[in-house]
């Protein structure tokens, strides 16, 4: 059993009377990539700002590396690399000056490593940050988070504004730090991203943790949309009683349906027919998300 790097107990934060997050319980384990998934305004950034002691809990506790987020804030933040959700910058500084400034708070910059990160992310450090596009600022922000090789990376919407090639490089960087045994906590509202790089995902909605799942289980749970092409016309009645099947529609030789859980009953049933083609529409995590959401509403 690996130990918790982030651990919250009944963590609650009220803004005036609005709950920002409510009774949050989560454990992020050492060495995992934890995705924090939720729509905008769900409380992701609030949670992260509680981790970093920018804001204080109304009740409940946050521990990082087993230490209290406020009392041991300095020792905790020594081990953290942080990328804010809306990266703010000093527009008059160049990328290099900005990184040098940030590194000065941690005993100086490792320019060799920074250069390496910059060339991987294709970032031009000599430009003034005020003239950079959003994506290019984001790259500087990522370099800033990775440059001191922290034990825990806390990244708020890290791929926002990055072009696809750079995104791939970022995913590689995340896998590399994971291989080194470091922990990554990243928030996102982009499902395929979380699917791709995270080991576990916590789903937050309206400040409440709706579920914490393994990515694998999450994929298992979701609906699959199938389109099956037969050699001859089929009847709707032949399929509607297959376990786990729903939304059955038949258009001549084509059967469309959704399957949850095991595919086995459906495969067994269609084996009685002459099957030409099976098309599976890769559904997004979004749909799993929606099942969680609608489940919560009921």
């Amino acid at each position, binding site marked *: 059993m690996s130990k918790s790097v982030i651990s919250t107990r009944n963590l609650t934060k009220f803004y005036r009377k609005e709950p920002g997050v409510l009774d949050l319980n989560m454990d992020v384990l050492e060495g995992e990539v934890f995705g924090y998934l939720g729509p905008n305004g769900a409380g992701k950034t609030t949670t992260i700002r509680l981790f970093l002691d*920018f804001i204080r809990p109304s009740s409940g506790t946050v521990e990082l590396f087993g230490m209290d987020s406020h009392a041991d804030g*300095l020792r905790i*933040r020594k081990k*953290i690399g942080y990328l804010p959700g809306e990266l*703010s910058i*000093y527009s*008059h500084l160049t990328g290099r000056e900005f990184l040098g400034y*940030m590194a000065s*708070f941690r005993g100086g910059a490792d320019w060799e490593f920074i250069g390496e990160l910059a060339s991987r992310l294709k970032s031009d450090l000599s430009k003034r940050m005020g003239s950079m596009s959003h994506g290019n600022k984001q790259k500087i922000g990522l370099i800033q988070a990775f440059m001191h090789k922290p034990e825990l990376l806390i990244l708020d919407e890290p791929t926002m504004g990055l072009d696809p090639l750079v995104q791939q490089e970022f995913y590689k960087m995340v896998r590399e730090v994971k291989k080194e045994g470091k922990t990554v906590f990243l928030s996102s509202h982009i499902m395929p991203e979380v699917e791709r790089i995270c080991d576990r995902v916590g789903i937050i909605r309206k400040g409440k943790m709706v579920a914490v799942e393994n990515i694998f289980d999450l994929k298992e749970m979701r609906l699959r949309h199938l389109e099956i092409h037969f050699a001859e016309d089929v009847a709707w009645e032949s399929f509607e009683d297959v376990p786990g099947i729903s939304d059955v529609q038949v258009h001549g030789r084509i059967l469309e349906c959704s399957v949850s859980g095991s595919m086995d009953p459906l495969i067994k049933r269609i084996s009685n027919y002459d099957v030409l083609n099976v098309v599976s529409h890769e559904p997004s995590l979004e749909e799993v998300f929606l099942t969680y959401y609608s489940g919560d509403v009921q």
Partner: protein
Amino acid sequence: MNISLKTLRDKRYSLLWWSIGVVLLNLTVVIFYPSVSSVPEYNQILQEMPPALLNLFAGNITSFTSPEGYLNSQLFFLLLPFVFLGFNLLLGSESIAMEERRGTLDLILSNPLPRWRIVLEKFASIMVLNAVLGLAVLLSLVVGAWMVDMNISAWNLLDVSISLVVLGIFFGALATALSAATGKNELSMGITGAIGVAAYILNALAPVVDELEPYRELSAFYYYIGNNPIVNGLKPWDMLILLAVSGLFLFVGILVFERRDLGV
């Protein structure tokens, strides 16, 4: 690079313009001194003016034509302290609040850096900026006095310039403390400005308005110029009191800053 050095670097052009402004103001005023000192009748104005009005705009002076009286009434009583009030009100108010509003405070504090250190580093840079602006005041007056043969010693000018810098630091500390405690730039400017103007009026009118007299020692301006440092030199106690209260402002500001939530 640390926060103080970066702030100084960020403010270098601003400081340059303020210094140019102060030098031009001082030279303009000093250049007219010969034409005033050669007309002793000017001093009669002092007798004819209503004392409240005189006190409000030129201080409790006895001579308009002496170098000290001229510089006090034209520069050190009203104009220069208000220049320093404005300079510090802007610098102090934005010190924490602007970083917070832009979101850069989050970035700085994601490092292993305590909040109080940001406040103190910002304040240290404000002290340096005041000292440089004070130097601009002193040098322009020394040079100006030499140009027009004004009979005043550089030491007297040094004393009053130091007093001016300390007054500036006082308002800088107040604005910085408010900025840290509230995170609101405009609020800090408003309160610091209001307190500055009130303190000025209190000190200026106390000698002629009996009701105000007992409260004069509440005014920062009293410690700045009440002892008339251009004539009598610096009174260390006055300076210490201003600096001690500045420290108290910062202490309270930091205390609140350490406890509050940062805004986004």
